[in-house]
């Protein structure tokens, strides 16, 4: 019975994907795809169900745990010595998207507020630096806190009216804000230079050295990403983070235990947007050129996909999601035309088979303090 349902489901998905592919690859390609998916889904399913972790797996993992972070750090630090510019470039974009995904994860994952216009906050961070730098000649470092704080304030401003609304309405307001901001950036020629964007943005300087070099810039992004993970993790495991999650889980219960629901929603918006602002300034400093084209609705959707893909509410999930969605299109460059299609199919499949995301929720283990 269950197997039959599974079979029917995989046939439906396979034919759907095949029909989508038909115009691009012709009958033969579509048929191949159909076969692969129709056979692949059940196989994947049985593998997943039948896979029993080896007995000692847990002890091996807990033995290796202390080594994870050092190994990761050394690898991350070594990358510029091993990899060429192309890889550095891709990794820098990974870092920027990780910041975005982490920020959106605070809003969507922790506090449970849907935000469909997150790219707008990314844009605000980028434009604050772009304008301050090109018009007033202010450098990267003084602009960093200004971009972050300015974007956080923008988050608050959008949230104030939006918080009177719930669920779908909040999504629509944020979506509308994203579009309005893009239109403003496109049309306010005297300030933003419209669709032509702002060029000639300066790269950061540190102790007289320009960080415009990809290697240095990579380290800058790495440092900021590590800092953001550190800070967000600590906030998540504090009174504030718990209040957000309570809010997401049950708003009425949260208010009944004394959480000021409106205030914590605002905090979530501001704190999440803060990281988008930092991502924005990094993007502007890396590209040295920004235009409204980089901050479209599709961008918002991409960031949201990263959060959902990795598992909403899970910091490491958001990081994994950002990595995957930046790297996959690069890997799939060969099949340019279809990569969005393949990504889309992948996301749909994931939502069917693992709706909680790749990593799912991670429950924190809290130990009872020992008396001393």
């Amino acid at each position: 019975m269950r197997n039959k349902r599974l079979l029917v489901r995989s046939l439906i998905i396979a034919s759907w994907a095949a029909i989508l592919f038909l115009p691009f690859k012709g009958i033969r390609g579509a048929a191949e795809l159909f076969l692969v998916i129709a056979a692949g889904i059940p196989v994947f399913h049985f593998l997943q169900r039948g896979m029993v972790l080896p007995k000692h797996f847990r002890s091996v993992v807990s033995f290796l745990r202390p080594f994870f972070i050092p190994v990761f750090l050394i690898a991350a630090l070594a990358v510029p010595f091993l990899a060429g510019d192309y890889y550095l470039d891709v990794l820098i974009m990974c870092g920027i998207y990780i910041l975005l995904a982490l920020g959106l994860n605070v809003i969507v994952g922790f506090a449970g507020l849907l935000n469909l216009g997150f790219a707008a906050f990314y844009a605000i961070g980028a434009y604050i630096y772009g304008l301050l730098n090109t018009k007033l000649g202010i450098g990267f470092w003084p602009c960093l806190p200004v971009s972050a704080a300015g974007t956080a304030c923008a988050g608050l401003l959008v949230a104030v009216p939006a918080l009177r609304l719930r669920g779908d309405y909040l999504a629509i307001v944020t979506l509308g804000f994203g579009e309005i901001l893009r239109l403003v950036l496109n049309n306010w020629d005297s300030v933003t230079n419209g669709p032509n964007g702002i060029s000639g943005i300066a790269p950061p300087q540190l102790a007289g050295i320009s960080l415009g070099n990809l290697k240095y810039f990579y380290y800058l992004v790495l440092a900021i990403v590590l800092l953001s993970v550190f800070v967000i993790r600590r906030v998540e495991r504090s009174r504030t983070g718990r209040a957000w999650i309570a809010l997401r889980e049950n708003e009425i219960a949260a208010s009944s235990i004394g959480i000021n629901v409106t205030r914590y929603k605002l905090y979530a918006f501001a704190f999440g947007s803060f990281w988008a602002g930092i991502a924005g300034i990094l993007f502007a400093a890396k590209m040295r050129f920004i235009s409204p084209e980089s901050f479209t609705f599709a961008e918002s959707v991409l960031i949201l996909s990263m959060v959902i893909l990795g598992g909403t509410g899970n910091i490491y999930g958001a990081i994994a999601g950002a990595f995957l969605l930046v790297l996959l299109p690069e890997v799939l460059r060969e099949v340019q035309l279809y990569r969005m299609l393949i990504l889309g199919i992948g996301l749909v499949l994931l939502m069917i088979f693992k709706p909680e995301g790749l990593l799912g929720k991670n429950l924190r283990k809290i130990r009872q303090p020992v008396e001393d």
Partner: protein
Amino acid sequence: MVHILEARDVSKHFGGIGALEDVSFKIRKGAIISIIGPNGAGKTTLFNCLTGIARPDRGAIYFMENEISKLPAHRVTELGIARTFQNIRLFPEMTVIENVMVAQHLRVRYGLLSAIAHNRTFRKKEKDIIEKAFEYVGFVGLENFARTPACNLSYGSQRRLEIARALATEPGLLLLDEPTAGMNAIETMEVMDLIAQIRELGKTIVLIEHDMKLVMGISEWIIVLDHGVKIAEGTAEEVRNDPLVIDAYLGKEAVQ
């Protein structure tokens, strides 16, 4: 101050339905009081009005001299009223211990920067929070489930966790909305014992119950609602013999 809570002419309408009609009563400090009444009598609506979850259309509610009927829920909790819900409202993805930790939100505070720096204030307060959480979880008998996600608990344990979470807000007045609903006889007895124990802590308790017999023994004062109207109040003995109550409430049961 003898009375911890006073409601004056509280009314609440939903469209044409009068869920509460000019309900007035006083609650003596340290007492266990029961509110009974048939389905749809307005009991839960009354709790919602008392806790800021619903706003009464008319009337006033005083809690320890404060007028609370216009306050938002979190302010009411801050003043010292906590509640449980008839249709359980836990934080399902959080573990048992986290459900109780988050409920200390108002009582143990520290700034965001302390949390980021993990400074001494943070470590000390966070340790306090965890210790207290384990105390409350132990108090309701869930110590073996501290790390279980709330959604994986049995129905009875979920109701207990709601009580632990409410206690963690350190209330003076505890409102329990049908705390034994859906429990078997043994579980019901245990929860009744737990309620008696909570009273020993010096808390005032208001209990909504469907089953009048259950609350007769434990409560010293009973308020009876029917169709949003307070039709009687008094000791168990008085209420049991009140003709209006027999008519509205016991009568129905006798017929069934």
